[in-house]
């Protein structure tokens, strides 16, 4: 039998605090059971569709991530507590220049794989070999994902309205799955935040934010983001 120690100030897992047996008849819906872990049985798959973070194995729904289980219509999904940004064509992203060759910039867009920004899609006309004069290593840019290959290699572009090199303000980030909460219903949360902080806020799909304004406003936005991230990590928190 497993015994658990109690150490001061540490959350302790104990068998006597263990929860329930899995339901045998379809996805569960009680509040406590919303948080699931990889491999956890979510019920029978018949009549349900497996969404994000869910697999069907031998007629049963199984979670593949740690997160909150959601059910919309027939689709069962797991909203993870941690995510990695996966680029899709058309996404507005904030990237950092990580390197360059004579005609290509390598851009970190916080995805599993770096993107490339070809000279032809850059912010200005560039002579061959003059890439560092336009965008140097360490610069941040607002760009759009142009193309994603099967192997997840992506190409970004700076040809488009509002796409530019970021020269002022501050950058911050939240987990990409929290963007929905950050924006709020009909954009209300973000609108209120902009009004309160008197800052210009650009939210990129990769979870990075460009906050431009007075320093007090930037602090207000950063505190709000920190609170949002903290709340989202609490089990049974914001939904």
């Amino acid at each position, binding site marked *: *039998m497993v015994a658990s120690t109690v150490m001061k100030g540490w959350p302790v897992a104990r068998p006597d605090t263990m*929860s329930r047996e899995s339901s045998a008849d379809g996805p569960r819906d009680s509040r406590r059971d919303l948080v699931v872990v990889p491999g956890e049985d979510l019920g029978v798959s018949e009549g349900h569709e497996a969404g994000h973070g869910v697999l069907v194995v031998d007629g049963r729904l199984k979670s*593949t991530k740690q997160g909150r289980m959601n059910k919309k219509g027939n689709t069962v999904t797991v909203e993870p507590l941690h995510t990695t940004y996966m680029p899709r064509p058309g996404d507005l992203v904030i990237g950092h220049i990580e390197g360059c060759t004579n005609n290509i910039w390598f851009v970190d867009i916080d995805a599993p794989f770096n993107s490339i920004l070809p000279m032809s899609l850059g912010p200005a006309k560039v002579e061959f070999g003059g890439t560092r004069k336009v965008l140097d290593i360490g610069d941040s840019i607002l760009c759009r994902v142009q193309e994603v290959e099967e192997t997840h290699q992506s190409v970004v572009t700076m040809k488009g309205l509002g796409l530019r090199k970021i020269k002022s303000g501050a950058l911050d980030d939240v987990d990409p799955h929290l963007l929905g909460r950050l924006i709020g219903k009909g954009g209300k949360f973000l609108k209120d935040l902009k009004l309160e902080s008197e800052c210009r806020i650009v939210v990129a799909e990769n979870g990075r934010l460009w906050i431009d304004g007075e320093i007090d406003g930037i602090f207000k936005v950063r505190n709000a983001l920190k609170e949002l991230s903290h709340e989202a990590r609490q089990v049974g928190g914001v939904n």
Partner: protein
Amino acid sequence: MGGYGDVQMIDENGLRMDGRKPGDVRPITIETGVVPVADGSCRMIWGTNEVIVAVYGPMEAHPRKIQRQDRAVLDVAYNMAPFSTTDRIRPGFNRRSREISKVTADALESVVLLELYPRSKIRIGIEIVSAEAGTRCVGLTAASVALADAGIPMTDLVVSVASGKINDVVVCDLNKEEDNYGEADLPMGVLPNTGELVFLQMDGDLSPDEFKQAWDYNMDAAMEVHKLMVEALKGGGN
């Protein structure tokens, strides 16, 4: 397996030197989110073993020659801190740490959905802060919790437990003396939801009946440890 058969490690009441029964596991504490800069992390205290695991990624795989076009690669680095044992350990990789890193990566590859992240790498650092027998099992179990904490998609968690033989008695979860002076050691990695085996090593000799007994002890202990892992992941994440 020191082979000192005359060392008495189990008394006439069937209790071991630390007061445990043959099937008992040492006390376990699991905490997630202990390394703020990591994507996922876990601290596991198992008896007097203490392990910290940090997971980073998926990220671009470097050097490029390690990239796989159809899946991600797991870069596992198991390391014992120089102060983790009574005898100072020379820092850096050695043959033992390479072996454990490899078997840990092999065990985790069977549950992580690597095909979702082609050409990328998931870096797992396992640091043994305090060692008292069974560190490969603790490292593998803690790595699986840290991967889940990092949001890496997996089909199941991996639980690893070792059983062995001391004074001709099969016991579960060997401590340092039992590991040093015992007759056999059987570490196993199990997928608790399906009962599948992803990792098995054996040191010493066990008869078929003893093997079966050690197997059963490991399976039972794995289910109990899995409950603790689930509880830590559901209640933790702070």
